[in-house]
């Protein structure tokens, strides 16, 4: 009796062919993007979105053509932080036009089309059993968004990933080998452990697994609290264990102190002040990231 591999095709459903075609559409849509950079962590609440938009604005200020895709479909924040919350998604001649912030940053985020306090819901015949299909559907939506937008010519497309080490790995496999990863952590032992697990998942270190993602650096966020009155940076967390770069080859791009003004600027959708320790750290991170990307094969 014939086996699975003896039969050419799938009898006419073309499901595998459609999945392959969808991947190809995504590749075509991203053809003009020089660097694809996913900002991830694995840990929630470490400031991935803040770091993403901070890096993006620093890169724009350095003359780079930059866009962000908010990959957190359930908790989209980039539309608010970039000030494109009320911009409609406009169908152009060659795909969806990219909404732009006042400083020229392209931002596609479900936050532009979801109500402010509305959860993401999917139509389904098996409501109540979302554990079976929801993760796959969300990844499919991400792929479709990547394929649908007219990204044009970009130097850097930043992807703001949702929390979860497993999600980081899944997105890495969706994006393929051209994607670079920047990990975000905070100086706490708990966060460092989770981020180290994401790093392990992406690189397959020591487990014989093929690497799924190329990690080009990490950012230590909330590295102290910057006091505007006295100018000192005081610790926010107890003395941490060894930083990530002490036990891995991943370089530290920057340590960013917590600054309430930076948080307020993000909430208000406006660019943060640049002459602060946080602003300087973000610019340094952007410079180092760009240098790493440009020197990569």
């Amino acid at each position, binding site marked *: 009796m014939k086996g699975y591999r003896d039969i050419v095709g799938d009898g006419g459903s073309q499901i595998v062919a459609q999945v392959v075609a969808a991947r190809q559409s995504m590749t075509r849509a991203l053809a003009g993007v020089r660097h694809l950079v996913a900002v991830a962590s694995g840990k929630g609440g470490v400031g991935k979105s803040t770091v993403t938009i901070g890096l993006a604005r620093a890169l724009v200020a350095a003359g780079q053509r930059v866009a962000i895709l908010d990959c957190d479909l359930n908790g989209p924040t980039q539309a608010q932080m970039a000030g494109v919350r009320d911009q409609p*998604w406009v169908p152009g001649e060659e*795909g969806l036009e990219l909404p732009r912030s006042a400083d020229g940053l392209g931002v596609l985020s479900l936050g532009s089309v979801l109500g402010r306090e509305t959860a993401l819901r999917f139509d389904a015949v098996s409501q109540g059993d979302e554990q079976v299909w929801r993760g796959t559907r969300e990844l499919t*939506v991400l792929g*479709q968004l990547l394929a649908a937008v007219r990204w044009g010519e970009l130097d850097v497309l930043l992807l703001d990933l949702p929390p979860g080490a497993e999600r980081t790995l899944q997105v890495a496999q969706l994006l393929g080998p051209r994607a670079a990863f920047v990990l975000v952590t905070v100086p706490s032992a708990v966060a460092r452990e989770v981020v180290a697990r994401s790093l392990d998942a992406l690189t397959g270190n020591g487990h014989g697994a093929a690497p799924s993602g190329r990690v080009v650096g990490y950012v230590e966020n909330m590295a102290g609290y910057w006091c505007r009155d006295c100018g000192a940076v005081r610790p926010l967390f107890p003395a941490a264990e060894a930083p990530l770069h002490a036990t891995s080859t991943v370089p530290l791009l920057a340590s960013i102190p917590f600054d309430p003004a930076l948080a307020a600027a993000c909430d208000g959708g406006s660019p943060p002040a640049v002459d602060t320790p946080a602003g300087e750290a973000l610019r340094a991170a952007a410079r180092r990231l760009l240098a790493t990307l440009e020197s990569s094969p």
Partner: protein
Amino acid sequence: MKFLCIACDEPMKLEESTPPADGAGFTATFRCPACGQGVAMLTNPWETEVVGSLGVKLANGRESRCPMGSMIATSRPAAEEPAGVAWTAGALARLDRIPEMVRPMAREGIERYAKNAGRGVVDEALLEEARAAFAS
């Protein structure tokens, strides 16, 4: 998934599929091209969603449902919903060139823009106007 006619050792061909309509799964029928023997594959809701979550069209050109359809229906408070906005064929053609998944979202936002601008028709000129209005 492939289906094999045991008697003929021949792969069966997809004959017809029916999208989910009864709140359960979809049905696909396969037939052996050699002997004509047929089988029907009846999927349960989980299996249906697993296939649908890949964003593929079902056989016979029938599209799976928009995976975000229900999200669009609840994305904004009902009081904000625009009504009575017509689309020209040219504008609809542009809308149709983007994937089904993002179509309702783009449509809703454009209709809101048109209504706020006091326009009752979405045409290509209005789409260009909206694009230019939000370009930096």
